């Protein structure tokens, strides 16, 4: 551990994506003040450039892997993987937010600034190697997203989403923090490596405090990834928040929280895995069941996607339960595939909903295939991937997750998980049937062609889903190498 407080050049490089995003966000706020709030469109383009630059910065940082800032940041392959995923998600959302916000006459620089801050927090969460840095990262991401959820201030639904997200999110943060405090008492340190060393002492030396800390930390993370029994906020928040924000909340914060969960539990708490395995097992199963069964009953498409995203968190939780490096790699692959398919599906919702989000029911999509065949085809691809049909990223995601679970001897969890994904096929297929087999509804009849940014986001997510489905081995190999987390 170095004792110099002046960061070296290479340390700054390892943190460059986060530094860049925070600077760009602040620049947007300043520019908005200077130009007088009429330049939302240009500021949006600037945000896209900043996200693109952060993507490149993550790749540059990946060429110099290692620790930074007295070991509190770890720019390893794991961090790079999740940085790329959350920045790509932010990029797609920023892309199709423009048309949506212009329609609501609410395109301002602050939206993009908050988006950049939130992505910066998520990147930091993926690379944090110390619990307080992790907590600060989580809060940076969360506080910005509370504001984003209520971004349309005059909208009663958005208000409700924001207040629920804020209250339950802060409640969860308190749990996470109490977990940190307990483990600090047990291990005398908040560095993941030192906690691991302290917990790895002779068997029987770990007190029940370690188990309690693991439970509190798990509760905090479970809120953020909307895993049962802490999933109640997700449907209301996704339904009430503006559609692009719902897309964002379902992708970046969830992937980043899983990154934090995986890193903490696979390194620091690995020696006491017996104390948390059971909790994660139950949570994985409950999350899958709650998400899928409730999704069957939904007619609002945003709520349906919310429950579906809960179910997907359950599948990732299965990979966490396996707690092996194969499981970690499977979770990473699954999250990459999930982010693209989910953001793509929400992109269609944000375009289809029209002003004031009038058309958000599954039945409104009736006959979409006759009016906008390309949009319908791309959405079908994304939905098939969410089901887990072969040749899509979703298929290999599930395949790797359940393979990892079987190798860890979790036979029952695998069987129940597979049953769950069969149930899930029903509600995704219902959307397909409505789009292709019904006469065009009034909502689909007067639908204009999607604006270019929405088209670009949709094509990009569909292509990413296909690439992950046709050439999964490249990504999986990278994930497998990165999954061997150094404590």
């Amino acid at each position, binding site marked *: 551990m170095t004792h110099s407080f002046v960061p070296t050049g290479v340390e700054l490089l390892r943190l460059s994506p986060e530094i860049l995003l925070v600077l760009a966000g602040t620049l947007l706020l300043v520019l908005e003040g200077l130009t007088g709030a009429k330049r939302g469109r240009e500021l949006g383009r600037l945000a896209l450039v900043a996200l693109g630059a952060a993507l490149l910065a993550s790749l540059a940082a990946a060429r110099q892997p290692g620790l930074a800032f007295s070991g509190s940041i770890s720019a390893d392959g794991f961090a790079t993987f999740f940085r790329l995923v959350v920045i790509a998600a932010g990029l797609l959302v920023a892309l199709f937010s423009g048309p949506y916000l212009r329609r609501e006459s609410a395109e301002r620089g602050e939206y993009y600034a908050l988006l950049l801050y939130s992505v910066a927090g998520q990147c930091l969460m993926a690379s944090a190697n110390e619990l*307080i840095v992790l*907590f*600060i990262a989580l*809060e940076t991401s969360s*506080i910005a997203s*509370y*504001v984003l959820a*209520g971004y349309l*201030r*005059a909208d*009663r*639904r958005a*208000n*409700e*989403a*924001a*207040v*629920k997200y*804020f*209250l339950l999110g*802060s*409640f969860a*943060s*308190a749990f996470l*923090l*109490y977990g*940190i*405090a*307990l483990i*600090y*008492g047990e291990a*005398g*340190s*908040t560095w993941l490596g030192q906690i691991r060393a302290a917990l790895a002492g002779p068997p029987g030396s770990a007190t029940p405090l370690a188990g309690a800390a693991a439970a509190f930390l798990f509760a905090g993370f479970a809120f953020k990834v909307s895993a049962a029994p802490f999933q109640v906020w997700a*449907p*209301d928040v996704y*339904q*009430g928040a503006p559609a692009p924000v719902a897309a964002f909340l379902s992708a970046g914060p969830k992937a980043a929280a899983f990154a934090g969960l995986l890193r903490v539990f696979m390194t620091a708490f690995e020696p006491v895995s017996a104390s948390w395995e059971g909790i994660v097992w139950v949570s994985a199963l409950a999350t899958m069941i709650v998400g899928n069964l409730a999704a069957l*009953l*939904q*007619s*609002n498409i945003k*709520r349906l996607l919310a429950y579906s995203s809960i179910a997907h968190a359950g599948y990732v939780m299965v990979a966490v339960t396996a707690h092996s490096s194969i499981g970690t790699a499977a979770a990473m692959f699954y999250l990459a595939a999930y982010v693209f398919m989910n953001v793509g599906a929400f992109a269609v919702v944000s375009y289809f909903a029209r002003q004031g989000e009038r058309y958000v029911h599954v039945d409104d999509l009736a006959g979409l295939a006759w009016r906008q065949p390309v949009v319908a085809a791309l959405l079908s691809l994304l939905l098939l991937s969410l089901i887990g049909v072969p040749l899509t990223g979703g298929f290999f995601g599930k395949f790797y997750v359940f393979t990892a679970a079987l190798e860890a001897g979790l036979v029952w969890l695998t069987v129940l998980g597979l049953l769950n994904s069969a149930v899930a096929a029903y509600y995704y297929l219902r959307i397909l049937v409505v789009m292709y087999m019904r006469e065009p509804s009034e909502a689909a009849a007067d639908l204009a062609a999607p604006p270019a940014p929405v088209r670009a986001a949709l094509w990009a997510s569909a292509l990413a889903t296909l690439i992950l489905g046709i050439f999964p081995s490249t990504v999986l190999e990278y994930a497998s190498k990165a999954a061997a987390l150094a404590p």
Partner: protein
Amino acid sequence: MSAAGVPLSWYLVLAALLFTLGAAGFIFRRNIITMFMCIELMLNAVNLTFVALAYHLRQVDGLVLAFFVMVVAAAEAAVGLAIILTVFRNRASVQIDEVQALKD
């Protein structure tokens, strides 16, 4: 151990009680501002734990951590009260039961 002779466990038990009180208040209270205050109580329970442990471990780390928690709590309060204010403007109420429009 400590100067005044109060053992570490007393502090930890007090903090755990405060945390539980906060969590229970959050679950049972229906006023959004009160719920928010309960979260602050939970955060202060965490701070008490950090400070007591730092004293016990003779480390400065725990004291610094408490400062970080305070900073984050302040940021959360700023955003949270702003959100509560917009809710009040739109509904003229801060009862969580009256903020229940989102249902299928």
